[in-house]
Each structure stands twice: as structure tokens, then as C-alpha cells.
């Protein structure tokens, strides 16, 4: 039987993004942001947007591929795909879905995209007023639990309790993102460094998260162009090959009111081993990592469950000097990430991974050949991927 894998079969050949705005401040409607990011990604690759035939997105993106293909005048629409689940969990899965479509002959030139203009719509971190709620929400909203910072607090609190995690470990994660944002003029937090005192003195949002443990909310859009490895060198940029991708969640994750079998988890427990198996690599092979920060506690659990360190090593490993480019043991969120570059539901992390492999990051890890991207943790399903340069094939 032939091996079932995506390893080395698909490459990212173009990336594009709009300017990143604070939430509700985009001058453009959301659909325009999506179009601008897609056009930028095509221009980066040197591909005619009319030759795009497939689209994949996630997190209930509101921009319908059929409308996008019509607006762009694409010659035909082949594969169109929406990854189930919210909260950025699908950022790597959308890439994997598009790649699977390419490998199986259903797509040739695929765009993975995400656009957000929250001024047009309801924000994530604010609940709607009044009314009634049913189902899962009926078991949590009347108790004042509405938004991700609260809903996921129980997971982070339990994990930190079980493993004796200190606040300084979370602080290092936040500071790494802010550190890298200071080198990145595109970052929303460019020119706004974060000190240990700023972090420690910030107000609580929902324990164990203080203000700087929580991601921003932003407007903007991001897109990637994927083609088969055979065609990857026909385009303008150095290709970033998909070495592994995996998605899913842990046992009974969605059992209502916090009844997942294992609650104190990022949900990557059963997912990460499949990533390493496909990539034929392990945590020690990763030169640079982008790890989705909805909350720093989520990053902590993601790193542990991917095997970067054991829970009991977390307090020692999670120190700023270990997490920053170019010299850290595990340079992480090198564009500023969700916390300090932009909260583009993590698609900006995929783009940063590609930049690292091209050698064009504003916080470049010298000679980076293997780049990891962990999409939104704690939700269901989650997803994760590894990209590699040509030498890794």
C-alpha cells in the first residue's frame, strides 16, 4: 500500500496580507479586505488571480468562495472548503484541506484565506445584550461566562494547577511576541514594547489571564497560494513545502459544560503525534515556531502537547531568552503573533512561517529550514502543521 501522506507534495508559493488595523477600524468592508489579501498573495507568487481555481477557509469566514471567484473572474471554481469549528483552530487544517485537494487532483491552484472586519459584525470579546439562551450557552451564560477568555480559563487554570506553572512562564510567552513586534513595522504593537512591570501590573481579565495574556482583536485579511510540488518552482518565490499537517481534538471535547474527558488540555494530545509522524520529524528539528496565542496559557499547553518540553520543565524552558530570534532555543511568534502583530485568526502565523523559510522575516532565524505552525488551541477541532524548505524534502 502506498504511504498516505502530504509530505513534500504541496508548497506555499505566495503570501499576502492587508494592512492590519485595530478592531473595527478597517476603512474597507470585510469582503474588500479578503480580495486585497488574495490579490497580494497572487502578486507575491507571480500568478494571475484568474488562474486560481480553489479556496479553503475556516472559523466560519463570511466570504463565500463562489463570490470571490466571481469577483476575481476566475476561469473556473473547483474545490471550495470550510473547516468546521471556530476560534482559529482551523488555521493549519485549512492549509491541509487545500493541500489534500491538490494531491487528490481536485484542485490546482488553491487559496487559503481569512478576513475579519469586526466593525461590520459582532466582536468576539463582547457578548450581545439580553434575551434567552439554550443548549450549551444556557449552562454557562447565566453564570457570567460568555467569551473565550472566560470559557478557556478553566482549562488553563486546571493545567497550571496540575503542573505547578508559574506566572513568569506565561509572561515569557507574552513578552516574546511583543519583543518580535518591535522589529516588525506591520505589527499593530510596533513601537509599543511590553516590560515585565507592564505585564505584571496589568488588570485581570479572567484568572489566570491578565490583559497581556489575551490576544488582540483586529481587522484585516491574509491569504496563501498553494500549488503542487511539481509546479512550485515555476513561481517567483522560494517555495515552502508542507511536511506535515494534522487536525482533530481529544476525547469528547464538545461534551457540554466542561465534560470533555480531559479538560486541562490544548486538545493537541492526540493530534500532535500524527503531525510528527507525517513530517518524519520531531520537536528538536523545528528551527522556528509560530504558536497561536489566543491566551498565553493555551500556548503553554500547545508546546507541552507537541513535545517541546515536559510540563515539569515549563517553568525553566519558558524564559524570554529561549523564545526570541535569532539565538533562542525555540524562537517563537517571530512577527509578533496574535498578541502583538495582528489577530488574523492565526493566518498571519502561517505567513510568518513562510517568511522564515524564505529568509525574509523581520526577526529572522538564520538558515531556518523547518518551521512549525500551531493553530488555535483549546477549541475543537484544532490543527497544526510543519513547513520546510527544499533541503528538508
Amino acid at each position, binding site marked *: 500500500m502506498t504511504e498516505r501522506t502530504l509530505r513534500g507534495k504541496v508548497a506555499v508559493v505566495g503570501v499576502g496580507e492587508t494592512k492590519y488595523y485595530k478592531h473595527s477600524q478597517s476603512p474597507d468592508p470585510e469582503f474588500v479586505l479578503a480580495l486585497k489579501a488574495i490579490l497580494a498573495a497572487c502578486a507575491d507568487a507571480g500568478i494571475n488571480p484568474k488562474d486560481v481555481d480553489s479556496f479553503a477557509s475556516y472559523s466560519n469566514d463570511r466570504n463565500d468562495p463562489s463570490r470571490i471567484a466571481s469577483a476575481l473572474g476566475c476561469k473556473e471554481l473547483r474545490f471550495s472548503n470550510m473547516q468546521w469549528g471556530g476560534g482559529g483552530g482551523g488555521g493549519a487544517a485549512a492549509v491541509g484541506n487545500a493541500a489534500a485537494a491538490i494531491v487528490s487532483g481536485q484542485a490546482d491552484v488553491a487559496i487559503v484565506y481569512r478576513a475579519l472586519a469586526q466593525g461590520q459584525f459582532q466582536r468576539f*470579546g*463582547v*457578548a450581545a*445584550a*439580553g*434575551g*434567552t*439562551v*439554550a*443548549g*450549551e*450557552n*444556557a*449552562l*454557562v*451564560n*447565566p*453564570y*457570567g*461566562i*460568555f*467569551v473565550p*477568555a*472566560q470559557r478557556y*480559563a*478553566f*482549562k488553563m*487554570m*486546571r493545567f497550571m*494547577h496540575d503542573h505547578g506553572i508559574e506566572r513568569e512562564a506565561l509572561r515569557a510567552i507574552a513578552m516574546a511576541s511583543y519583543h518580535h513586534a518591535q522589529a516588525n513595522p506591520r505589527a499593530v504593537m510596533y513601537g509599543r514594547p511590553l516590560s515585565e512591570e507592564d505585564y505584571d501590573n496589568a*488588570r*485581570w*481579565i*479572567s*484568572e*489566570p489571564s491578565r490583559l497581556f495574556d489575551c490576544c488582540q482583536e483586529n481587522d484585516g485579511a491574509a491569504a496563501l497560494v498553494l500549488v503542487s510540488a511539481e509546479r512550485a518552482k515555476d513561481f517567483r518565490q522560494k517555495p515552502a513545502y508542507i511536511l506535515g499537517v494534522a487536525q482533530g481534538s481529544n476525547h*469528547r471535547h464538545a*461534551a*457540554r*459544560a*466542561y*465534560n470533555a474527558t480531559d*479538560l*486541562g488540555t490544548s486538545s493537541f494530545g492526540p493530534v500532535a503525534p500524527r503531525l510528527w509522524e507525517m513530517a518524519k520529524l520531531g520537536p528538536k528539528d523545528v528551527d522556528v515556531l509560530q504558536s497561536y496565542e489566543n491566551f498565553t496559557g493555551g500556548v503553554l499547553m500547545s508546546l507541552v502537547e507537541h513535545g517541546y518540553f515536559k510540563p515539569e520543565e515549563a517553568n525553566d524552558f519558558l524564559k524570554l531568552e529561549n523564545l526570541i530570534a535569532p539565538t533562542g532555543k525555540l524562537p517563537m511568534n517571530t512577527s509578533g503573533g496574535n498578541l502583538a502583530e495582528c489577530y488574523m485568526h492565526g493566518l498571519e502565523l502561517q505567513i510568518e512561517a513562510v517568511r522564515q523559510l524564505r529568509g525574509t522575516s523581520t526577526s529572522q532565524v538564520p538558515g531556518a529550514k523547518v518551521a512549525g505552525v500551531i493553530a488555535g488551541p483549546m477549541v475543537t477541532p484544532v490543527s497544526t502543521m510543519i513547513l520546510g524548505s527544499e533541503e528538508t524534502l
Partner: protein
Amino acid sequence: MTYLPAGLPAPVTEADKLDQPYWEGTRQNKLMIQRCGSCGTWQWGPEWLCHECHSFDMKWVEVEGRGTIYSWTRCWHPVHPALKGFGPYIAVVVELPHAGKIRMLGNLLGEPQQEVEIGTPVTAVFEPHDDAKVPFTLVHWRQV
């Protein structure tokens, strides 16, 4: 006097009535959860079938309102208009060891800045909202 201010969303039974016995039970100060009539597995939240043996014969049984704190958060940032100027307040996930270790979420009554520790025993406290358009009762917890 309720733990949280008025104006938060009111819980109602689902359109398909899956969770109706739970909400009806709370009106009588009873904690009703699911137990499989075929294999005895405890199950919460409610589902149409048993996740263990796939029997659709799910019974609703009353369980004693006690447990231990499994996890918790103290919420400071007001995320709902009704919570503006209010807070902090505490929400706990409580594990019920005598009911297959199922978990329930509620507020932890008492001083909002009280020390909270995972593993602490708690007991259920019913909070009726009789004046709501569709009256309902919430289930809170208090340190024993």
C-alpha cells in the same frame, strides 16, 4: 437577591427538548442528570444517546448536589452590558464524584475575592428567578 445582576440571558429549554428534565428539575431544587438505562454510564451534558454503549434509553436521575472544585476562574472584565461596574465574580467547574465524575458549572457564592482551591468540597445552592418571563432556577455552589 441573585449572585449576578439582572439582565443576563435567561436559560430556556432547547427546541428539541433534550434538556427539559434538567431545567424542570431545578425548579423543584433537584439536580437531574442523565444515566444510561442500559449500561449505567453517567452522562452530562445531555445527549440523545449513551456515549459508552449507544443505547438511546437515557434515564434522568436525581443526584445529590455536592462535589469538589475541578477548576475555576475569577472574572474581572465586564463582557456583558448587565455586568458593567460589577465584579469580580467567581465561576467554578464542579466535579460530582458520586455521579461518574460528571462536571457542572456555576458561580461560587460568597465573598468574590475569597481564596479558591481546586479540590475544595462544595455544595449546590438553587437560585430561583421566579419573576423571569419564563421562570428558571440556576444552580450555584458554596464552599462546605
